[in-house]
């Protein structure tokens, strides 16, 4: 991978950047522009120190370890108190009360969502993504997946419950 980065930065970059971006995003409460700053710092640091990379792990793993340090630096500089307890309460009451806006932008909540989505059954993850991220109505989802509206409705209900349960489990 190191040689690939040296030889063909463009293709390697397009492969590595989104993964590190996702990693940093789900562990900080930063806006995407600030996440990009941290990712850039990680990549620049990795590039400058690339000769120290011993190829004992993958280049991406090595970069992720740098990203972890950058995230730790970020938290050290912020000295913010943990919102883990507040997040746990909000998730517990997910079906009863709206999640407070400030908790949506915490690293704890992002990490829980990221972890839950990774563990969620693929079919459930797909319908949740189509419904909430792509903002498709049930009818359009049904057409796209070649199923009936009622099947999609019932899968969405199960997906929401599964997602809520997984959120409740610490990552």
């Amino acid at each position, binding site marked *: 991978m190191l040689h690939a980065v040296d030889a063909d930065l463009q293709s390697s970059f*397009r492969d590595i950047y989104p993964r590190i971006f996702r990693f940093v995003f789900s562990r900080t409460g930063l806006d995407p522009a600030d996440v990009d700053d941290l990712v850039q710092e990680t990549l620049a640091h990795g590039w400058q120190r690339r000769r120290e990379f011993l190829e004992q792990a993958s280049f991406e793993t090595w970069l992720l370890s740098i990203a972890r340090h950058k995230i730790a630096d970020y938290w050290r500089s912020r000295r913010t108190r943990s919102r883990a307890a507040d997040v746990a309460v909000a998730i517990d009451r997910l079906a009863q009360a709206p999640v407070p806006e400030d908790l*949506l932008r915490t690293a704890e*909540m992002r990490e829980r969502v990221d972890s839950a*989505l990774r563990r969620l059954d693929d079919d459930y993850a797909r319908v949740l993504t189509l419904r*909430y991220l792509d903002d498709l109505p049930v009818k359009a989802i049904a057409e796209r997946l070649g199923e009936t509206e009622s099947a999609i409705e019932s899968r969405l209900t199960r997906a929401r419950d599964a997602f809520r349960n997984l959120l409740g489990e610490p990552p």
Partner: protein
Amino acid sequence: MTTILDDNCRRLLRTCTPPRLTEADLDRALARFEGRRRPAPAHGRVVAAAAAVLLIAVLLVWPSPPTPTIPATQATPDDIAQLIKDLGAPETREKAAARLIAIGPPALAPLERALYHEDPEIRVQSQAVAKIVRRGHEIRPTVDFVLAAIKIVRTRWSARDFTDFDKAVVEAFHPEVPDQVRYVPRRTIEEFFDTQLPGVKMVPAKKDALTPALVAALEKNDGLVFVGRGGAPVDLSEIVLFTLPDKVGWSAYVVLHVGGIETAVEGLRYQHASSEEDLGLFVRLPLFTPREGGGLTVGALDPKSPLAAFFRKGDLLRTLDDKPLAAPKDLAPMAERGYHTLAMERQGKPFLIEMRCAARVLLKLSPKAEPEAQRLLELADQTWPTNPDRALELYTDFIARFGGSELYTKERRAQILDRMAEAMSRKR
């Protein structure tokens, strides 16, 4: 219940999942990373390298200020904050730096605060730009002086309004008189730059040659370049190189050596010392006309006046000791003992005069001289209502002989100077 869960799921997925990165996002990130991958500029080397030429270029496009202070280019704090942020990205850095330099002093405080920015790139670049802004602010009055003088030379050149070109240049730059002027009637680009000026590399075999770098700087900077002793363009120097226009651009250039410029970072300063009487009379004369927009215009001076050697008809007096001059009475403090700073413009050239108002030495008159001085003063007072011209002569005689005596009190001096000014005004 389902509605709340549905809404929460939507908000969680939209807010807590990373945004989908498009090809354009990746292109931008890659461009940014490629910029960072290059060695980081040591203390803003990239910006500093272009600074000399950029600074003059920016100063040239700024509108000339109506007062010695520099007007800020319109920019909101948000604009400045965004420009500082743009310094961190290689693709926007150059444009942002040029804009911040053009904004000038209003950008200085935010730039200085950026020393603590979380992005190390912005920390370095912002301090490099701040340095240029500070320097630009300091040298602006001197650059304005040179620009105005060059404008006079070019106007006379185009109108062929001179018989001796060197003399025309000296007149245009007065009172910062160049001690060497070199007119080169052709444009030559060679390897070396030879000004035939002291301290600058001499290449006898290639006289009159401009380096391609100097030609490029002249083209970029409206035909004006300050040249360092090594022959390269710098932001300010005592060696000034400027072009003379023709129908297709420029075909000749002038190199001159103006000794005071290199050190005059806060504007050209000249020193002048006068007595309380000379200055007292000068400020009382009806010579000064308030100008719309501020300042006093000097009228025609009596060639015999001690101050005629320094002030000229048409000079614009802007401020005295940093206080704006709006009416002739505002000049009165200039006749008080001590040091004063007068900011003025001559044919658009701003400069400062450090004026020293000196008092006569106080004399103790001898018992024999005192009655004579007293008699002379009484005679002048008596003559004043009927023959002011004669009274003027008597007062002048009194000042010349007994001006440093105890008889010449502050009140007496004010009275005599008022009368002298009145008499001279009647003559005019």
